[in-house]
Every structure is written in C-alpha cells, then in structure tokens.
C-alpha cells in the first residue's frame, strides 16, 4: 500500500499542477490572449496562433532532466529551436516573401524607396534609448530592430547579438506587427492635413517582364556589396523574387511561397512561443523591451510620414506623394500598406493608395535587412 502511495506522490511531483507558479499562469493567459486576438480580430493569425500556442506549450511546468524543455540540449523542441538560435529560419522565410512579393510598384516608382529608408530611423532611435536604459550595445541593436517591423529580421539579428533576449524581442515584434492598424492610424492623422490626405498619386507606369527579372539581380548585387552582413536575408529575398519573375521556375517559386514558408512559419512561431518560458521571459527587461519596441514603431511611422511630406517639397504639382503611404515604410508587409489604403479611403472613397503604399512597404523590407546587416557589422 505504501508503495502505491509513494508512487502516486512521486507521480504528482512530476505533474504540471505541482510545479505551477503564477508566472506560468500569466504566460499561458498571454498565449490564450494571442490566439483569441488572432481568431476574433484576424490580426496576424498565421503568426499569433503558432506563437500563442507555443507559449502555452513552453509554460507547462515540468521536472527538468526528462529532455522535453526547449532549453534542454537534445530535446525535440530544442532541436527545432536551433533554426531560430542559429538564424536559419529567417532567411527561409525571406525566400518565401521574395517569391510572393510583386515589386512592380517599387520598380515603377523608385523614388518611394527613400520612404522605406526614412522609416528605418526608428530602429536607431530605439537603439540610442536602449543604450541609455542600461542595455549593452549588442542588446540595444537587437532591441532596436523591432522598429523594422519585420519578425524574421528581428529574430535573425537577435539570434546573433542577444540570444538571451530573443523571445521577448520576437514576441514584441510580432505583437506590434499585429497592432500596426492601431498604432499607426493616430500618428498618420496627427501628422497630415486634410488636403494632404486627399492627394491622388499618379498611376504607376506598367513594368516590363525584363525589368522584373533585372530587379532582384541588380538589387542583390548592390545591397550585398554595400552591406555583406545582410547577405543571408537579402540573398534569399531577391533569390525568391527571381524564382517568381524568371517565368521558368514556377514550381520552385510555388514551393517557396507555399509549403516551404508555411512549414518554416509553423516552426518559427511555435518555437519562439515556446522560448517564452516564464522564468526566462517574465523579467523587467522584457517590459523594457516591449516599451522600446513600441517606441521604435512610433518613431519609424513618424519618420516615414514626415519624409513623404518632405519629398513633396521637391515634387511638382500632379506628381505629389500622399503622405499617408509614409507609414508603410516600416515593412510589416502588407499590413502597413493596407493601413494606408484604409485611412486614405476614409477621406476619399475613390482614392486607392494600396498600390502606391506597396512600394515603400517592400522598400522597408529591403531597408530593415540592410539596417540589420549594418548593426551586425558594428555590434556583432
């Protein structure tokens, strides 16, 4: 009889109930909140559902030594997490993004590239503030990249510069990407006049197939030569786009933008979610990172909108830029561009800004990868 009781007691010690702390409960609640928001509000569901469920998986308490935790060497979750830790999931995601993105809008209006560059100031604004809040330069760089509004880039850079902060940085980046409509709209309205919001932009010229093929080759060579440290991201982004536009690799392009990116998104989402174990995640630093991430987004959006207004000073009448597309420079493809479209239509139902906003939006992807490369060169 005693043996049975001892066995039961031993088993109970192994259960999650026995090891549960309030921190675990908080993290599980956050995970459920992510899933709820993704389903009810349709905010980044492809990312928030895997991350949310990953948070629940990662915060089921267990007794160490069974090789089941994400931080236990050799466990299944640990092996899957290697793709995040070593930074090989983000370039694969970029391959898929390249294969699914149409860069025509950018090719036909290359001047809008500059808005994508201006929005990257948010990264460096957060970097400076993070330094003053006591983070090391490498940690500050990893935190600042949240302002690039690009989850894979944030994971790639934080895996190199501050792996111990990666969970908080990734969750922060994806959370704010999901909240893009909420964060950006008030800033856009605050910084633009009614007259500016009504500006109708010139229809972009049609782009030939030859230009679309030249675009990724020239784009990669030029950007990689300037910032070789951004090569994994830039290379895969432009390679994916070449697969799409070459016209002779349709099967590869379909795999890259379909099954491949889906598999990697599932793995990256679940493992990043798992990495937010309460003992690692619920710290004062995480709160600071969330604050800095928000600040970075706000600065990036502000700089994008203001730079569009600045460019208008040099544009002739009829060739002006609607500053409502400035927010799209932060990347977050295509949600930020959708925000431009929706806010634009609030003031003129027939003014469709989506096509124009896609140019700074995809420029933001290139810009954030370049910025990540620069930070890696300086701080890595």
């Amino acid at each position, binding site marked *: 009889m005693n043996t049975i009781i001892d066995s039961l007691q031993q088993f109970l010690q192994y259960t999650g109930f026995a090891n549960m702390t309030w921190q675990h409960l908080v993290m599980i609640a956050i995970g459920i909140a992510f899933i709820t928001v993704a389903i009810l509000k349709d905010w980044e569901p492809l990312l928030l559902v895997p991350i949310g469920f990953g948070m629940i998986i990662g915060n089921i308490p267990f007794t160490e030594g069974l090789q089941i935790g994400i931080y236990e060497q050799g466990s299944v979750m640990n092996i899957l997490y290697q793709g995040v830790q070593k930074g090989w999931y983000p370039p694969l995601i970029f391959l898929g993004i390249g294969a699914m993105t149409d860069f025509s809008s950018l090719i036909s209006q290359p001047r809008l590239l500059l808005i994508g*560059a201006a929005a*990257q100031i948010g990264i460096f604004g957060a970097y400076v503030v993070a330094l003053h809040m006591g983070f090391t*330069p490498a940690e500050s760089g990893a935190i600042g990249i949240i302002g690039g509004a690009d989850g894979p880039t944030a994971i790639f850079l934080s895996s190199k510069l501050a792996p111990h902060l990666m969970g908080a940085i990734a969750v922060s980046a994806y959370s704010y990407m999901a909240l893009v409509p909420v964060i950006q709209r008030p800033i856009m309205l605050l910084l633009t006049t009614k007259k500016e919001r009504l500006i109708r932009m010139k229809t972009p010229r049609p782009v030939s197939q030859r230009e679309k093929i030249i675009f990724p080759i020239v784009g990669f060579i*030029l*950007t990689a030569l300037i910032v070789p440290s951004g090569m994994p991201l830039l290379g895969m982004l432009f390679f994916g786009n070449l697969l799409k536009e070459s016209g002779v690799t349709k099967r590869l392009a379909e795999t890259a933008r379909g099954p491949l990116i889906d598999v990697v998104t599932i793995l990256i989402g679940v493992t990043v979610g798992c990495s937010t174990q309460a003992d690692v995640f619920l710290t004062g630093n995480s709160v600071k990172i969330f604050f800095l991430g928000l600040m970075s987004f706000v600065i990036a959006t502000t700089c994008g909108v203001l730079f569009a207004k600045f460019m208008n000073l040099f544009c002739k009448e009829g060739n002006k830029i609607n500053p409502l597309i400035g927010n799209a420079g932060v990347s977050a493809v295509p949600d930020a561009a959708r925000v431009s479209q929706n806010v634009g239509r609030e003031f003129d139902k027939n003014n469709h800004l989506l096509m124009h906003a896609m140019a700074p939006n995809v420029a933001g992807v290139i810009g954030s990868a370049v*910025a990540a490369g620069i*930070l890696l060169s*300086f701080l890595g």
Partner: protein
Amino acid sequence: MAEKDPHGAIITLVSVSVVFVALVILYFAYTFIGKLSSGEMKLKMPEKKKKAEAKGVPSGEEAAAIALALDQEMNGEVYAAISMALHQYLNDTVHDNESYVITIKRKR
C-alpha cells in the same frame, strides 16, 4: 566601435547614412533601368544599325519616305479599284486569267 560610442550617436548617424546610401543607389539604378526600358533613354548602337542597313532593312527615315511617296502616288481611285478587284476575286466572280489568280493592271 560600440565601445568608442557610448551614446550611440556615431553608430546611429553612420548606420542611417548607409541605409539611405544603399537605397539611393538602388533608386538611381532602377530609375536608369526604367528609363532604358520605357524608351525614354536610348543607347546608341551604331554597329547594329550598320548591320541592319547591310541586310536591306530600311531605317525609320527611309520607311517614312517610302510611305510618303506611296501615299502621293496612290489616290482614292486606286484604292477603290484594288478593293473592287479583291471583292470580286474573293467572291469568285472574276476569271481574267485562271481560277485563284488575280491580276491588277498597273495604274498609268
């Protein structure tokens, strides 16, 4: 680099500049490619032109001159005669030589 820049100002300034430079270079590259592609800017290719001339392909100016000469030579009556002849031929009502062969006399 980071050790010499505790406030991050230099890294920020340099990094923002590099991002802008990279994208400005892309801007110039794509503007140039776009202009080439849309025909706003044409590359001079004298050798190709010479080859085309050697093969008997008329240049733009020559084609325009030929078109003008033909236009001056032909008048409405000529067009009407050709149209009538074609109409009759296609309806199989003309057999001036033999079936399925049409003859149009030259205008004098």
